[in-house]
């Protein structure tokens, strides 16, 4: 039997780069084929070509034995190609069902909501992906949104399913669940292309791996015959340090102290319930938890971005409960928000301007209300070099940077001023191993200089490898605080799911 998909000599140029340079790839029937590559290696571009979104400049696609000449995604869908995009292709104000059936609604002129819901219930049962078809997508957690994306592909009865970084925003549990589904699909004979930056995931789920670097395919390996280090090296083209060495834990004074903090949202639903913890100098305090359990509300309340219902916050013993965001920054707090594009950057500002987005009123950069652009550019030049922002042109708009480099700009801004406390939410989301390595190194450097770090992440791996102490949050409550050295994945996983394996630890606190 022939392969389900053959990619032959595909080339795709964009104005400034060759995104795909003579790419070849074969996906066999019923296999899970992983594709690895650094940010910007050309993975998504290739997938978009297979899905009919981009037209290749040259090359051929053979799908299911016939040559494809796609005029758009609708044809790809018709042929049986489904794709879950790296960036969600969802309409937040639509319901789950509307999102799923959009473009392939149940026959008729009228939108048949009943029928649509029924069809969705069917497939969601079949694949064990429960979801409420009438929920609005904007009210769903990221994990559930991911689920909607996957259901969208299933609904269209794909023979080949492309998953472009589906796990970037999933919790470990959700990832495992996705893998189960993928295995089941494989059993049923479906072919899957799986893209991820997480090597251990690739090793766990795939049959074969193709590695891309700078638009070219550098090789296809059998998963069983390779390992993390080999893949990482192949990807980056050099030796990569996968495990970062952490220096000794030497906690100092208490920097941040949160006492009995409770936060309710606009609908008066309690999001954070009576949370208390402390972070000390030279310490990384990791907050683990499944997405949507109050992490964001907690951080935003601390940062003065959200009203607190009760409780107080102290910074070096000073009551900062009612400080504004700006006042908190002035105290020496830095903040890397979760969503770099929506919260962290003004995409239409230059890199240089984004680097002073908080500090523009600082006497270093402005005098009597006039910004000293010479100083701003000097600073930018230095930071861009120091943090290896590529391309190193600070007059470029942030919009024109890749996501990884956008994150570096935020990092440069927040870490670059030597804060006393850094609050980092999901600092490495969607980044490749090289970039993650870099960011982690900077965070550890900061800790070693004596700063306190509050790390919020959905990646258990990240929390466990960096944190000195780990708090676990579930439904707005801090379940427990564990020692970073001794805590196990299972322990944390259970707490994240809401079961207190040891009540005494909690009460003793």
């Amino acid at each position, binding site marked *: 039997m022939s392969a389900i998909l053959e990619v032959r000599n595909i080339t795709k140029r964009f104005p400034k780069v060759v995104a795909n340079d003579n790419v070849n790839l074969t996906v066999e029937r019923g296999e899970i084929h992983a594709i690895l590559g650094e940010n910007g290696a050309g993975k998504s571009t290739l997938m*978009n070509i297979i*899905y*009919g*979104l*981009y*037209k290749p400049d040259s090359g051929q696609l053979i799908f299911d034995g016939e040559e494809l000449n796609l*005029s*758009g*995604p*609708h044809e790809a*869908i018709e042929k049986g190609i489904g*794709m879950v*995009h790296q960036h*969600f*292709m*969802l*309409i*937040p*104000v*639509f319901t789950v069902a*509307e999102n799923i059936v*959009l*473009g*392939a*609604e149940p026959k*008729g*002129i*009228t*939108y048949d909501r009943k029928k649509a819901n029924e069809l969705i219930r069917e497939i969601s049962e079949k694949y064990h992906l429960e979801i409420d078809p009438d929920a609005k997508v904007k009210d769903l957690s990221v994990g559930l949104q991911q689920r909607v994306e996957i259901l*969208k592909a299933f609904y269209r009865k794909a023979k080949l399913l492309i998953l472009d970084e589906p796990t970037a925003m999933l919790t470990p549990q959700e990832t495992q669940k996705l893998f189960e589904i993928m295995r089941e699909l494989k059993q049923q004979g479906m072919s899957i292309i799986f893209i991820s930056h997480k090597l251990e995931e690739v090793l766990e789920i795939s049959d074969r791996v193709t590695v891309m670097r700078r638009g070219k395919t550098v090789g296809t390996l059998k998963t069983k015959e390779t390992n993390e280090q080999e893949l990482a090296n192949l990807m980056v083209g050099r030796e990569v340090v996968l495990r970062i060495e952490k220096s000794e834990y030497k906690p100092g004074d208490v920097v941040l102290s949160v006492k009995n903090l409770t936060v309710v949202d606009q609908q008066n639903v309690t999001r954070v319930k009576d949370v208390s913890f402390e972070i000390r100098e030279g310490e990384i305090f990791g907050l683990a938890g499944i997405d949507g359990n109050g992490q964001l509300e907690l951080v935003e309340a601390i940062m003065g971005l959200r009203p607190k219902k009760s409780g107080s916050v102290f910074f070096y013993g000073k009551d900062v409960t009612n400080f504004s965001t700006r006042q908190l920054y002035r105290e020496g707090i830095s903040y890397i928000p979760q969503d770099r594009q929506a919260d962290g950057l003004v995409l239409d500002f230059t890199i240089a301007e984004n680097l002073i987005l908080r500090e523009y009123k600082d006497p270093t950069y402005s005098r009597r209300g006039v910004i000293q652009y010479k100083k701003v550019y000097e600073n930018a030049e230095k930071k861009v070099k120091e943090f290896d922002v590529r391309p190193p042109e600070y007059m470029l708009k942030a919009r024109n940077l890749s996501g990884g480099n956008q994150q570096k700009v935020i990092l440069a801004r927040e870490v670059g001023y030597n804060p006393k406390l850094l609050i980092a939410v999901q600092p490495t989301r969607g980044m490749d191993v090289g970039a993650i390595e870099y960011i982690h190194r900077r965070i550890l450097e900061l800790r070693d200089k004596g700063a306190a770090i509050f790390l919020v992440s959905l990646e258990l791996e990240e929390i466990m490898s960096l944190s000195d102490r780990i708090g676990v949050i579930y439904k707005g409550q801090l379940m427990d605080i564990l020692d970073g050295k001794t805590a196990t994945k299972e322990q944390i996983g259970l707490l994240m799911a809401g079961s207190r394996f040891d009540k005494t630890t909690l009460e003793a606190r």
Partner: protein
Amino acid sequence: MKEILLNPQLWAATLAMATPLALPALGGTFSERSGVVNIAMEGIMLIAAFFAVMFAHMTGNAWIGLLGAIVVGLIVALIFAWAAVSLTANQIILGMAINIFASGVTAYLLNTIYGFTGTPVDTPMLPTVEIPIIKDIPFVGHVLSGHSVIVYLMIIILFISDYFLFHTNLGLRLRAVGENPEAAETAGIDVIKLRYLGVALSGLLSAMGGAYLSIGALNSFNPDMTSGRGYIALAAMIFGKWTPFGSFGASLLFGFATALSMQLQNTAFSKNLIMMLPYALTILALVGIGGKSVPPAADGVPYTPKK
């Protein structure tokens, strides 16, 4: 005051003044739901108002006049769509350009075709409709019956619009395109085609609004006779949160305030202060109901298909 509110003419005028706002406002709902801000509605109304008279007079049939107006309105809308959607030009500038053009071209045609005495007196008008039974109910009859047929068409279109936008597959797709064209495209939807559809519908309904002014309420064309209704319709649509019934409601509010200011002019107040009423009431209502209205996410943003 009670006397004024009990005057059926107040309510009849409300409906009559609301109609040429509601039609383009409904049209704008379609266009903006598909992601295109159509300021050109003002100009399309004006052009349609002229051609409605021209075709009606030429053929002696007001219905053909209406049809002709709609065809011309569609043509202008499609030209706008071509530049705004296919060439991704700035929608506001384009709209303004069309409005300047419309004001000039209609006055020019009026002069060259009809001379100074204006459009012919024997231009037929669209019929008015007396609703059986209702027309004989004292107060209600005066308010609801006896309007131009376009008023009733508008009501029917209102329901169809709501149904179309929120209960049909095509409506779903149209809204998807205005919310997230990229997502729509990956779902296999032709974004460009649907945006053309949205703009075309706004052209069609604006044209009807224009025809209402020239051969519905009257049987003549006057230069600039739309007097900014296309713009106010846009405000009504925003006020109505981009929904058909909301747009209609806002148009009614505006029509009511205008009618009320007409009734109040002969009272002790300065007439010019009273004429502010429609505008002031609109602001008050907007602020009062917490006027937060969220436009379709991709409203006004040109989209270039990826391939």
